[in-house]
């Protein structure tokens, strides 16, 4: 009796968690009245009606995520190493400052970046709003802290004796760094980079305020399209995203482990 109740409750919670994701896929094949459920007739029409601008937006999203994460790794990994190993005045302050962007709501970062781009335009005549550069700068606000935090976490288990061994065997500092230190930190760097990449692909508030026109990311494109006209084509796009996400999810779980990936988050 008791276990029957708990089974029902647990099932209900899991249905709640998974329902909208499953429904997106089912409803995208609904021919008449896409928002009515259960569907009464089947069609693949919505998939052929997907506007090519969605593909364009996907490309923008991928480009922004790739550039953002590359920059974040290049500046974040040395920065994290300095934070982990150096002992210089103000280090703990610097540590807090570098991670602080994660404590600020993305919407606030978005509007801050937006009005700052207006200031930059006023004073220097440089256009950032609506450009690829603007999107990347906006996304660096979370990408750098994600990478730094993941590398710092990986560095806790760092075994210095291997570096010492390399040096006593005659390796130069450069060789030690690239052949010993970096490979040892690779899992940390990877999980920070993957996480930043995923958030960049998914993020709305910052990309909403920094992008426009041809430089609109996919989630923002869907977000604004929903405000205007919510139809079958949007469900079809969303359904494609679900399928891709699920494939990605299983791959990530195999490679990194989902629990580990999310443990680095908060």
């Amino acid at each position, binding site marked *: 009796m008791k276990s029957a109740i708990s089974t029902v409750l647990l099932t209900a919670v899991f249905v709640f968690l998974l329902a909208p994701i499953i*429904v997106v896929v089912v409803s995208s094949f609904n021919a008449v009245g896409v928002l009515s459920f259960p569907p009464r007739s089947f069609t693949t029409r919505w998939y052929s009606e997907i506007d090519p601008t969605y593909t364009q937006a996907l490309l923008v999203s991928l480009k922004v995520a790739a550039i953002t994460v590359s920059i974040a790794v290049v500046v974040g990994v040395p920065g994290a190493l*300095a934070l982990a190993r150096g*002992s210089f005045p103000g280090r703990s302050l610097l540590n807090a400052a570098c991670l602080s962007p994660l404590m600020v709501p993305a919407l606030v970062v978005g509007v801050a970046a937006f009005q700052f781009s207006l200031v930059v335009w006023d004073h220097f005549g440089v256009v950032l709003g609506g450009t690829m550069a603007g999107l990347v700068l906006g996304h660096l606000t979370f990408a750098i802290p994600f990478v*730094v935090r993941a590398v710092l976490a990986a560095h*806790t288990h760092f075994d210095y004796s291997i570096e010492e061994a390399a040096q006593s065997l005659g390796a130069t500092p450069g060789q030690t760094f690239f052949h010993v230190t970096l490979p040892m930190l690779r899992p940390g760097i990877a999980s920070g980079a993957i996480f930043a990449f995923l958030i960049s692909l998914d993020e709305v508030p910052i990309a909403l305020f920094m992008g426009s026109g041809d430089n609109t990311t996919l989630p923002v494109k869907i977000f604004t399209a929903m405000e205007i006209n919510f139809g079958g084509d949007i469900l079809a796009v969303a359904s494609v*995203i679900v399928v891709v996400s699920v494939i990605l999810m299983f791959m990530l779980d195999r490679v990194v482990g*989902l629990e580990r990936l999310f443990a680095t988050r908060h």
Partner: protein
Amino acid sequence: MAPGKKALGRIEGRNKGGRLHGGSGWPLLASPMILMVGLVFALPIGSLILLSFRSMTGPATVGDEITIENYRLFVTDPFYFKIILNTFWLGGLVTLCCVIIGYPVSYFLARTRSRWRGMLLFLIIAPLLVSAVVRNIGWFPILGNEGLVNWLLLKSGVISAPLPLISNFTGVVIGLVHALLPFMILTLTTVIQRIEPELEEAAANLGAGPLQRFKQVLLPLSLPGIVGGSLLVFTMAIAAYTTPVIMGGNRILVMATFIGQQFRTVLDYPTGATSAAILMLLGGMLSLLALRFGAQRTEMAR
């Protein structure tokens, strides 16, 4: 952030003995990062705070003089007070729902020896990897007037007219609970796992009923987890923008949606900046508080 702090702690310990990694080149190594964070974050936020002390002179135009008028309005004008109240009400309700739904699930996950445990954890985390926009879209065929829930309720004769479940406050609550429940479950599971089952067994042997065991053993011991998880969920709920806009049908006024409105349609940048600064302050204070309670959360990985 907690793992970072802990990392530093351990390395400091390590460096006391280790001289190898001293040296003064470290700040130099960190300088690209410092410059970058300064450029993309510190400068824009500073400029936003400055903007919050100016006043609007026309759509999308801003005066030069410094004033605290925007802040004064926020504390005195009932219109703004209502927005802040709405924000707290939304955050509180979402948090409460997450605790009530999350606790039994976490208890089960913490205590079960089922071989499905890993799979269940995967199913809880997995929705987080699907875009928030996409998850929100999925709620429309479920909660809409012709959606699944209303279809079931109408068919079974429980109601005679469809319930308004989306494009309103209810919709926002459902969307946010869905988005934040996994965080609550993960936090609570970690904490409950640490409570030894023997304590509950002992209480049972001494004649405590299930309710008494929960009230006098489980609840007090898991309180830090409940507080930590609640602070985390509350902070994320009041900071969320995408879900309140989509699930609220663009008509629910909380701080986040108000800020979006000021910058996107009303074009009163200083008022938008002021509300953004207040939201940032609130979020920052709550995050710091959550960190105090959430130190154990990072162990979740192991």
